[in-house]
């Protein structure tokens, strides 16, 4: 009798122990020190960018962090849209405790946070800190993060879109490797020459240009027309919730689509929607467009297989001189109702945007520095001289109109795919430009209407 009781007691006790641990167990914090203020930073940087971010964080923790008793935990949360999704989930559940102290967000996620009570606009910190002046920052980047005249996010990773091309392929096709195409018409001509079909005549071994334009590219290709243009009203959502697109009435979308169709008809365009960067690296396409933030990664992966070239985004046509949009993202601070943490977050943010940090960030990624002092550093000048491709984005920035803005609209994820699908249908399905403009605009308008109805 007794034996049986004992036999069951031990496992049951063990079970209770495990259950208790599990029920009340949460993520174990790495930091042992109770006196240090610990803050959390969510970001979408992986690969080379992730390594740079880890290094910057460690630098901070070991210098200013030690000094001011702050520890920063940087957490990779997936892609930019994943970071935005996670933030939104916590904001909607009204659980600020689940929010991080800082988060790096790009245009697609701004809508979720900008009106939130849990977000502390950077402007508040700037005004409270006499040592920090907005003049240190690149003015275009500041403008891009301003909403209703308040600066809400701190620019951190600023980029412009570039045209990457394979210089060796250019030479082989009889094109000047130092002169990339400057307009879409030229792009069409170049693409035609660069296309290489396989000997069996059925498949294409090298596209002239690959990619399907979507939100990110269109912000520039629409924005640069007629001086400055926008995709939606309210200055692409920077003045308030957008209610409808304006690229139909402005005629800017139609102009672009016609020029793009021209590229397609050259025969050298590949309508690839995923992994285009990898295709370029593998030599399957001679040209493509992507943010300058991929520069370091591309150079690293291509190695010495061929020479990479980078140029300005080709203009829609000769009259579209607005340049390009400042893309990338910014860092936002969330309110944890704790003075120490708020101050710590601000310290970290100042570090990340300091001249030296921005130099490191720039060299390891391709993002251009947001801190104007970085440009004066000797190291910066040496680096740019040795690696001219890193300077292309910066030159392009200086040649662009700072009023071009990224678009802050709801359902950015769906919108992205809707635009791509519309373009492909137009090209491969033979839909007319007007029809494409109309149906796409209707779709996008509906998203905005639904959103505004849900959030009056």
């Amino acid at each position: 009798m007794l034996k049986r009781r004992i036999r069951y007691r031990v496992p049951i006790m063990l079970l209770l122990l495990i259950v208790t641990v599990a029920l009340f167990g949460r993520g174990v914090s790495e930091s042992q020190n109770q006196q240090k203020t610990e803050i959390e930073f969510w970001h979408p940087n992986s690969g080379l960018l992730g390594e740079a971010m880890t290094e910057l964080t460690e630098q901070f923790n070991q210098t200013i962090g030690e000094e001011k008793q702050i520890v920063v935990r940087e957490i990779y949360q997936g892609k930019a849209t994943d970071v935005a999704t996670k933030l939104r989930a916590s904001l909607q559940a009204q659980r600020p405790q689940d929010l991080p102290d800082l988060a790096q967000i790009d245009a697609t996620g701004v809508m979720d946070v900008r009106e939130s009570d849990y977000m502390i606009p950077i402007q508040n910190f700037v005004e409270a800190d006499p040592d920090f002046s907005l003049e240190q920052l690149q003015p275009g980047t500041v403008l891009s993060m301003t909403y209703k005249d308040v600066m809400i996010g701190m620019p951190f990773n600023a980029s412009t879109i570039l045209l990457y091309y394979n210089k060796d392929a250019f030479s082989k096709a009889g094109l000047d490797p130092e002169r990339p195409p400057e307009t879409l018409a030229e792009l069409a001509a170049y693409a035609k020459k660069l296309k290489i079909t396989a000997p069996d005549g059925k498949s294409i071994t090298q596209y002239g240009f690959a990619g399907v334009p979507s939100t990110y590219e269109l912000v520039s290709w629409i924005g640069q027309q007629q001086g400055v243009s926008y995709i939606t009203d309210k200055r692409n959502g920077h003045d308030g919730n957008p209610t409808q697109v304006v690229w139909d009435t402005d005629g800017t979308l139609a102009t672009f689509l016609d020029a793009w169709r021209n590229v397609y008809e050259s025969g050298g365009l590949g309508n690839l929607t995923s992994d285009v960067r990898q295709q370029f690296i593998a030599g399957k396409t001679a040209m493509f467009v992507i943010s300058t933030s991929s520069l370091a990664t591309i150079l690293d992966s291509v190695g010495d297989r061929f020479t990479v070239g980078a140029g300005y985004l080709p203009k829609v046509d000769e009259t579209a001189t607005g340049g390009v949009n400042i893309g990338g993202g910014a860092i936002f601070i969330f309110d944890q109702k704790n003075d120490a943490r708020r101050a710590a977050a601000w310290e970290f943010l100042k570090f990340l945007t300091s001249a030296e940090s921005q130099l490191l960030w720039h060299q390891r990624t391709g993002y251009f520095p947001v801190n104007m002092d970085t440009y004066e550093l000797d190291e910066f000048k040496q680096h740019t001289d040795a690696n001219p491709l890193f300077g292309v984005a910066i030159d392009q920035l200086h040649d662009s109109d700072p009023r071009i803005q990224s678009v802050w609209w709801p359902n950015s994820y769906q919108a992205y795919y809707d635009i791509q699908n519309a373009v492909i249908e137009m090209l491969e399905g033979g839909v007319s430009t007007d029809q494409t403009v109309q149906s796409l605009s209707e779709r996008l308008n509906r998203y905005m209407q639904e959103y505004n109805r849900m959030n009056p």
Partner: protein
Amino acid sequence: MMTTRRMQHMINAIVATVLGLIVIFPIYWAFIASFFSSAEFSSWPPRLFPSSFSFTHYVRALTQSPLLKFMFNSLLVSGLGTIVRMIIAISAAFSVAFFSFRGKRILFFLLLGTMMLPPDALFIENYLTVSRLGLVDSYLGIMSVYLLGPVQVFMLRQSFKSIPKTYHEIATMDGCGDFRFLFSVVLPLSRSVVLTLSLHSFFTIWNTYLWPLLVTNDPNMRTAQVGITMLGYADSLDYGPVFAAISLMVLPSVPIFVLMRNRIAEGIKAGMAVG
């Protein structure tokens, strides 16, 4: 002189082996690929064998991410989740099989009714519930939606009902308490069903992806399933450490599987027989 029957069996065996090798090829490849250098990865035609066995990717995978923590989390969540689920299911099935009380039928059908409501279709509301309870980033939060297994309840009741009612009557008359009866009589008799259902639960919970993804923000709390996709996720060019991590996760289970093969197969077949 081979009979046609023997030849038939030889052909069967050969075809089966070929198919089998095709089936495990991805596992083999993942293991091999964990040793490729970046250049070997991107080469065309693709390689089937690495030129050297360097462990750099393994080192990276283990140092750059809480890989061991991921596996521990998965084990804990699956293991504990299974235990708790079984306890709750056994408890409910016991009640339904051995007691009679008002509303028994209705309550039982209510429990079974949840079979029609797949948790994946409810994740939006469940997320709100879990996060309002403050269970985001907790083991309990991850396990919460899996703690009720209607299939388990159903099968356990079937199995319990096959125990003659007289046992229970005699036991009660002898002054035996319910727990005693449960532990000493019912469970030992239902051992194989319990084992099968436990194994099945373990695997089901182990394989879940969507829910743990939503409910965990802290990388230290991620399960292996989610954690693995977060290693160089956006950078599709950096496969090395990912495959090292996959190999680390899979290779231990392979020998376990091979050894336990018979046990597992028996368990599943027994489970089917009961159902």
